[in-house]
Each structure stands twice: as C-alpha cells, then as structure tokens.
C-alpha cells in the first residue's frame, strides 16, 4: 500500500455539479487512490467552521470542498462559503494546522482532469505537511 492510499481525504461534493463530476470520472474508469471519501451535500455552505476543524481533529488528513463555484444555483451561497473557508484557514493557522490540508475548488459535471489533479495535489500537500 502506498502512503497516499493510507490517507483519509474527505471530498465534499455538491449534488448538482461535483458529485455527478465524480461519477463521470468513474464512468471514464480513471483511477485514483482509495484513501478518498466522497460525501454529497445540497451545498457545502451548510457546514460551520467547526465541522472542518473537528474533522481534522478526528483524523481526517485533508478536505477538498468541490463546490459548484459560479455555477452554484443557490443565490449568495458561494461567496458565503468562500468567506467561511477564509475564516477556517485563519483558525487552522491559530491551531497550527497546515492550511494546505483544506482546499476550496470548483468541479463541474465533466471536470475529470481537474478532479484528479485536486486529489493528487492534496495527497502531496498532506504528505509534505506530515514530513515537515
């Protein structure tokens, strides 16, 4: 087992965009590490700051929030989410948690390459942070 596969990366996806995007990756039989756990939500704007901090404390190595970005069908949700993630970063710094373990990105229903790239980058970030 490679060190990447031993990680626990939580991938938060949106029902309308990145969850179907993750399915598209599967339909194309593109491969990535099994240390990845996809959860779907109506919109990640619902998570308070504590959700991310608690997840790290519980043992989640990295969190990728795959939002719908400017395609988000909910008025005002994306700017709110991005502000909140900014506040989570500040609290991560205060608590000495490497901020590269949390990433807010946008993934569409057919963003296969971007989906894989985000996972790869997150794995590298976590392993680098662990080595430091």
């Amino acid at each position, binding site marked *: 087992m490679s060190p990447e596969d031993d990680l626990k990366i939580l991938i938060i996806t949106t029902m*309308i965009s990145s969850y179907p995007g993750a399915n598209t990756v599967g339909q194309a039989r593109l491969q990535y590490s099994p240390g990845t*756990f996809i959860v779907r939500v109506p919109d990640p704007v619902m998570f308070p700051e504590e959700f991310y901090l608690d997840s790290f404390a519980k043992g989640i190595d990295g969190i990728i929030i795959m939002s719908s970005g400017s395609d988000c069908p909910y008025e005002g949700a994306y700017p709110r989410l991005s502000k909140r993630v900014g506040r989570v970063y500040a609290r991560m710094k205060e608590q000495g948690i490497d901020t590269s373990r949390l990433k807010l990105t946008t993934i569409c229903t057919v963003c296969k390459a971007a989906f894989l790239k985000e996972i790869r980058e997150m794995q590298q970030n976590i392993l680098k942070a662990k080595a430091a």
Partner: protein
Amino acid sequence: MTETNTSALNPSGDPIRVGVYVCHCGGNISDIIDTKAVAAELAGHPNVAVSNDYMFMCSDPGQALIIDDIKANHINRVVVAACSPTLHELTFRKALHRAGLNPYLFEHVNIREQASWVHKGDHEGATRKAVRLVAAGVEKVVRQDELFPIKVGVEPHVVVVGGGVAGMSAAVALAGRGLGVTLVEKGVALGGRVADLDRVYPTEERGADLVQDLTRQVGGHSRIDVRLGSEVVGLDGHVGKFAVTVRASSVASEDQDRLVRAGAIVIATGFDHYRPAQGEHGFGESPAVITLPDFQSALRQCPASQTSLQANGRSVRSVAFIHCVGSRQIDGVHAPQADGKVNDYCSRTCCTATLHTIRQVQSRFPDVDVYDLHKDIRTYGRGHEAYYEEASRAGALFFRFPDDEPPTFAASTGGKCAGTITTRDILTWGEELEIPVDLVVLATGMVPRDIASLIDLRKLPVGADRFLQEVHPKLRPVEIGVAGILLAGACQGPMDINEACTAAQTAAVKAAILLANPTIELDPFVAVVDGERCDGCEKCLAECEYKGALTMADLQLAGATVRRAVVNPAMCVGCGACVAACPPRAVNVAGWTLDQFDAMVDAIVAEDVGALAHTECRAGVRHIEFAVISGGN
C-alpha cells in the same frame, strides 16, 4: 392557506434496525470489491440487523429481499451499497414505500462509480474504502427521521414575462394544456427581436410572418390574457401560489395594479444587442462602421428595385464583416464591461446571422466585394454551414484574425474608400493585410437585458455571464434555483429562434406537469427548525437570501410564548446557508443534518465498524416546527 403544525418526525419509537444490502452489480462491483466481506463487516455494526450481498439489488428479486426484511425482520432503516444514487435512489425509495416504510429512511451508498470503477488495481483498498463508506451510510440513516413531501395547493395559471417568440410559444403551449396564462410584455407589441428580422435562417421565413402567426395563436386562445406595455412589479408567494403584481407603464398610480395569482412563472425577457464601445473597430468614430442589426435594418428598408447598396449617402462597393464583437472577449485584450468583466461567452447566433446577411448582400448586390473577418466560424446548427459554403462559393473572402489581435479600422478622408481595415490573417500564415472598404459591419453579440428590478423581486440567480442561470443544462434544464420559476429563450443565454422556442416548450411542459394536480408534492429537503434548540438569535435570518423562507414567529413552548425562527418550506430552497450560522444547531436541512455528517466522519475514521456506538431510537428527537402548506383556498 398556509398552516403550521408540529409533528414528531419518528412517532413509532421502535428500536432502530438497519438492513444493509451490498450489490455485486453483476461483477461491476464484486470483481474488485469483496462484497461478502463488506456485508460481513457491516453485520458487526451495533444497529445492523441484516447484512447481505446480492447479484443485482435493483432487480425485482433484489428489491424483494429488502421488502421481505422490512415485513418479516422488522427492518426500519435501509442502506443499499451499489451504483450511483442518481440511477437507483428512487427505485429503492419506492421499494421502501411498497413495504410500508417511510421512503426517506433510506441511504444509498455509491461503491461503483466512486469505488470499484476507480480503484481497479487495489482490491483490498477498494474493499476497505467500501466498508467505511457503507458504515458512514449506516451512521447517517440511523439519524434519519421520517420525512414527508411538502404538499402545496396550486393555482392552474401561469404568468409569462416577455412576449418575444419564446414567451409567445410558452403561452400558446401552456394554454393548449388547459392552463390560464397572463402574458406580460413591456413593449407596445408582441414579437421581441424577431419582429425586427427580415428573412430568418435557416428556414428563410420572414420574421414578421413568424411573429404574426404566433400573435394570431396567442390572440385565438381565450385562456391567454395579454398585457402589453406592462411589467411585473411585485412577486410574492411560492410555487403553486404566486401573487404577481402587474403594472401598466402608462399608469403611474398603484391603484390600478393588477394582482394575478399563478402557480408558476415563466421568464422570457430575451436579450439586448451588444453596443460597441466608442472606438471599438472604429465604431462611433466613423459613420462607415455600423452594427449587424443596424445593417440588417438598412437592408430591409432598401427597396427591392434598388440595384446598388447605399450607406451614409454613398454607394457601397465593398463591405467587411467582423465577427465576435462583444463576444468571446479576452481579459487584457478587450476593455471590460461596466461590471469589470469581459464578455467571454460565445453569442452563438452571430456567425450564422452574419453569413446569412452576406448571402443576402451577394444575391441582391452581386458586384459588392464581401470580406469576412473571424476568429472562428461557429455555424453549429443544422443547415447553418450551407450559408458559409454558399458565401464562399459566391466569392466572399475569409480572413482569420488571432484571438489577441482584433482587426482595426482607420477612416480615410477623401479617398476612394471609406477607410482601411488592418488585420493579421492566420490563414496566410500571419500575413498583415490592409483591406480598403466602404463599410464595416460589426457582428455584435447578445447581452442580457437589464431586468435588475425583476431579478431583485426574488433574488433570481444570475450566471457569470449575467444571463439568468438555469440549475443545470443537462440535469435540470430551464429550471432556476427558485421552485416554480422557469426560463424560456434568450434570457438564459444566447440562442436562436429554434432553440428559444424549444426551451419555451420545455418550460411550458415543466409548468404543466407541476400544475397538473390540485396539489403538488415538493421534496422535503428544506430547512427545519428545532423549536427547543432555537434561542431566537435571528442569525439564520441574516444568511437567508430567499425572501419569506425564514421568518421569526411567536410560538407557544411549554406554556410560554417564545420567539423562534420558522421556515416556510415552499419558499426554502434547502441550500443550508442558515444551518452554518446557527450556534445551537437548531436549524438543519431535513435529510442532511450536521449531526448526520459528523457521524459519517466518525465512521470514516473509525478503525472498527463494530466499535461504533449503538443508536437507540429516534423517538426522543425534539419536536420540529414543520410548516405544511395545505392545498386549495
């Protein structure tokens, strides 16, 4: 009528018994994931009463396994680990319903698209992941309450805003399905932009004839009430029961506002022509530079008997068309629009409209030299490419300019021509060319109309391109993020007549399905407030963008009057923005609560499924204020 009642969401209070079913998907899953091992591990979860694997869970015998376990083994929560929920979540919910169990006491775990298909080289890793995912599904479902669709009474009437071809098509289609329609048009006549077009591609019908035909159909329907010179100035209510205030622009006073009750709204407000900036390709500096719509209008007014093309009092012997003016703009190359952004989208119709116009020039004035300057030619529709081929055969010269070097125009004084276009041409390996011309026609793109006041009435979602934004072009076309409001035509992005009318028919069919019965059932995944946890801080209200979805109300709780947040489920879109803002976690989206997500994370990080805590029953759940909108008035 809106009534609020209070219900305990799990009245039975039975101990929680979960049934887990791991699907092989005929080998799609079981060739990679050890499905038996997954089922065996999950059997060790303290809340799991039955755990099985099976060849095809979606088959009739597969579903029968679940139904039998619900009936015979008193299973009251179900987890199926299989393909994507987008394929079969509904199939299994229906199976639960057939067995007499609330269909929402179900969790669908995706171990195919997001596990077996993407971890082919690591059977052990994929199996370990599947165990964690299914355990997370179990943890979620044990915290799941019974949910009930939200029932909303409907008004069998639709307000269509905008009387272009899209709005008119939608109105006729809706009336044809037995619904009443109020067609609100801001202008003094129906028809929109198509009324300005002479012959239209690809059918070569006259724009005026198309509009006349549709106007006749609209006028022939007793169920359609046309309000010309009018606008929507008020929009209250929710899907099934909107209250729309329509005001005639000739009437200043509010007294004569018309209140229309409607179950759905179709927005068909169309587009505006892009207006080039001063100096853009010489626009505004030389009368020899005009836009395509202006040129088309000049052609239309030019009598058939006229043998030479005239512009600005001089005869035109050469004309250059420049594509992509105001469309496919590039940051740093083009000046930004008023909002600081460039129009990076393609206006889609202008390539064919330009070539169609070139063909008209060529057939009416064969001696005129035609130059076509483009980045790309996107004649994407059926029959559109023929205009390109014909224009080329009839002698039009095509030049392809680089994305970052749009052609420039310099007017000449007293010369033989009105001026000279300078362009680099990729087709001749980057040669710089100077083309003397009498007239330059800018193929201006489409921009959204200024409908800010309409958008503000209901915070309608607008995309990065400033057009109204549909939820998803493939999964939920013509729907917008507000239930009961649908889009038709070019208000949601550049499209031609055919596409605008197709979108209008889609919107009409969706509205007709929505309003087909006296009541509609909406998904219950909206915000719910736990009246006991809510401390009335009002922080959630500040987060909610949807007017009327969250309000404060005085409620009776344990004999005392308390101020609490209350949700109107028909107005709530279930985005969850309010959830994150609530310190005591009193607000949640039903079916997607924070407690559920916390428990899922616990299961993902747990080393042993058997060590996860046992959840007793949900009978102790606090009563949740749950507004139910009852049907009929």
